[in-house]
């Protein structure tokens, strides 16, 4: 009898890229729903717009490269990039900025380097930074959370703002937007207010900002789900949050009036999203477990430094990109010791 020959191991493979991406997407959903709940339809519209753009861009590149389109779309990585971008940008961002950002992420940051697995930088964060630097006003126009919002907008009104740029009725941008909790803290501290004085501001909640802290909590939950499903390992999220928390703790001990608590830092801004969903992108992180700990800690420390003394209220994107640059070097210096080799390697 004749048989086909294949190479060992002969096993049914338990993992797939698609499955890994799918777990991350599923884990992202509760936090995303909370974002829509607190910040309105804009988040959902951005997400649909971003995903559509991402798929279109991937399809375009695959067509240009003469490759099959479906398997590349179905690895879900572009969709995940689009989703991460959409939850990171303000809800009323003009449509063309979302399109520009996602197109930049997919076409230049990802595909120009060779596609999935070859990108040096995290695509979603590179796009975020491009827009933040180029369009600082639009990129920092955040809405107040639902419970503080005096002018909630419906779906049609939101569509009108995003695609037409027209606010409903006599509303002005100043009336619609509100500083984020991180902004509030930053401004307050620069006016020599103490942390406890600033905390009485209605925008601040238990740990971070009202609404924001719930979203962060749900991202944490999603992170736990990914750890359980082994879609990510603990190394990067724990070290990222750890780096941020330890920095905050040290300075808080030093001067509790001038430096807010660790919990504020962890539950504010994009810290939780960044630690579990963005920094964990394996492609642009170092390829050793030990290296990932240094990488995560670096991100956490940089976030604290930029938030506290830098020019921007939040810094996940900058920190991730900076550490992306350091990843190959970190990897080089943290290569594991091969079994049976003594005294060489770094273990």
């Amino acid at each position: 009898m004749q048989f086909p020959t294949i190479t060992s191991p002969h096993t049914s493979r338990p993992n797939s890229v698609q499955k890994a991406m799918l777990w991350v997407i599923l884990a992202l959903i509760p936090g995303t729903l909370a974002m829509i709940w607190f910040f309105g339809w804009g988040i959902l519209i951005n997400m649909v717009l971003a995903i559509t753009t991402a798929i279109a861009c991937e399809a375009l590149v695959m067509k240009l490269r003469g490759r099959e389109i479906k398997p590349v779309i179905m690895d879900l990585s572009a969709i995940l990039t689009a989703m991460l971008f959409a939850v990171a940008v303000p809800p009323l961002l003009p449509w063309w900025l979302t399109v520009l950002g996602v197109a930049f992420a997919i076409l230049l940051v990802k595909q120009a380097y060779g596609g999935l697995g070859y990108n040096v930088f995290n695509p979603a964060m590179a796009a975020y930074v491009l827009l933040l630097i180029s369009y600082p006003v639009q990129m920092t126009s955040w809405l107040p959370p639902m419970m503080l919002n005096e002018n909630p907008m419906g779906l049609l009104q939101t569509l009108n703002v995003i695609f037409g740029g027209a606010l409903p009725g006599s509303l002005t941008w100043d009336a619609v937007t509100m500083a984020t909790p991180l902004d509030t803290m930053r401004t307050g501290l620069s006016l020599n207010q103490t942390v406890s004085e600033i905390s009485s501001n209605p925008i601040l909640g238990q740990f971070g900002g009202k609404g924001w802290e719930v979203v962060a909590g749900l991202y944490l939950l999603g992170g736990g789900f990914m750890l359980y499903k082994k879609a990510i390992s603990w190394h990067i999220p724990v070290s990222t949050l750890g780096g941020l928390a330890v920095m905050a703790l040290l300075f808080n001990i030093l001067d509790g009036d001038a430096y807010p608590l660790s919990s504020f830092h962890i539950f504010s801004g994009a810290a939780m999203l960044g630690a579990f969903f963005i920094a964990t992108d394996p492609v642009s992180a170092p390829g050793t477990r030990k290296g990932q700990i240094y990488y995560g800690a670096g991100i956490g420390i940089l976030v604290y430094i930029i938030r506290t003394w830098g020019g921007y209220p939040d810094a996940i994107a900058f920190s991730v990109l900076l550490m992306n640059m350091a990843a190959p070097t970190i990897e080089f210096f943290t290569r594991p010791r091969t079994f049976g080799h003594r005294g060489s390697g770094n273990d």
Partner: protein
Amino acid sequence: MSKFYTEDNNQIRKLWTFSGGIHIPDNKAQSLTRPAGKAEMPQRLVIPLQQHIGAPNEPLVAVGDKVLKGQMIGQSQGFVSAPVHASTSGTVVDIGDHPVAHPSALPGPCIVIEPDKEDKWADLPPPMEYYATWDKRDIRNRIRESGIVGMGGASFPTSVKLSPPEGQQDIQSLIINGAECEPFITSDDVLMQNHAERIINGAAIMNYLLDAKECLIAIEDNKPEAIEVMKKAVAATEKLDNAHVVVIPTLYPSGSEKQLIYILTGKEVPQGGLPSQVGVVVQNVSTAAAVSDAVLEGKPLISRLVTLTGEGIKEPQNLEVLLGTQVEELVPQVGGYTNQASKLIMGGPMMGFSMRSDAIPVGKANNCVLVPSLDEIPNPENISACIRCLRCVDACPMGLVPQNMYWHVQSKALDKAKENNLFDCVECGCCSHVCPSRIPLVQFFRSAKAANLQLDRDQQKKERARERAEARNERLEKIAAEKKAKMEAKKAAMKKKKEAAAALKKEQEEQAAAKPAADTNEESTGSEGQDG
């Protein structure tokens, strides 16, 4: 790499955990549903001459010769080698290349025997029942002459392993490997359940040869019956009082030599080194049984237990098979193929290799014939790009970074791959198994190793050619120099002669002139002095 503890005869024994490894469904139940049997006398025996790692064997018989069961038919003079024997009596009908169970699928030299069905034994060497009264050299020689090799898959000559090199003869632990960590395979399990005494006897003989401080029989905890039987056998025997049955957790590849040594002793075999360097020798349970047969009964290695399993086989079972029996003759004895049969794998799923045809003889190291269905083992899927997810790094039992090795191999940077310790890869297949991009990493590493060895060989060839060319140039130069020197010497001699002649002539002329003057005489002796 952490430590943990296990119970050993109501005592606590410390064990170590190597980093990496994978948990996979062991699929061992199906071949254990029927008791082990004995394969029928085959129509034809195809006995590969090369069933060991080392120097190739030369046939000792010719076509047409009658051979007896247990008669040596192939041998080599090399130290690292093992002879082969006729598995039954019959006639040699062919000596030539036939397909053999080798991953290259290249045919190898074989001796084909037509059995006469009489199964008549040759004169066997005397049993060494009281082996402790024999010289160790004689026992080692017996094991060598019996053609015993590592039967767990490595097929390294056992007698060599039992002769540790100078300076490595202080053996702390003799490990009898009954881990059998590959899925589907149950031949060692069955052997332990049914032939514990042979294993213990073999272990005792090897223990005597090595003078080991302890003998550890390691069995994975998914084989409770074997553990029970082996424990009883150890308790009952008087030959082996330093033996312990050590139950180790089921984790692939615990049965790999280096990993097993680490689990039991916490010692790491240095890169490129031998286990005896850390005072350990590992032997498979089947090998131990073969040693027992050879030493206590004088019987060479001519048969072994083979697991025939998978959903592609109607009645999966273990069979005692004469070496050289072809798979196509074995399969009908276990009910034949089902219509789900999709592949033919010699060995287990992790490290076995798939064969195109079932006209393949069973050799000394073939513990399993696996014919899976597509449900059990699907065909490979499309490869996607590496996303550097580190799953392969987490799974590698050797502490390698397969994703980086793959990167270098893919870009043909073999030297870089080598720097990343490519040659430490034991090809266990864990990385390929866990890869979400379905990259056949192990296959890349295998071919890279082969390419590297080829490169080394080419390099050596070049080196040799260069050396030869240099030697030739030197030789030619030397010859030329010698020639020149000779020529010069000749010339000088000629000149001297000429001058001597001239001087003589002059002298004669002067003498003839008969008017010698003191100053001209002085001049001529002076010039003569210069020439001399």
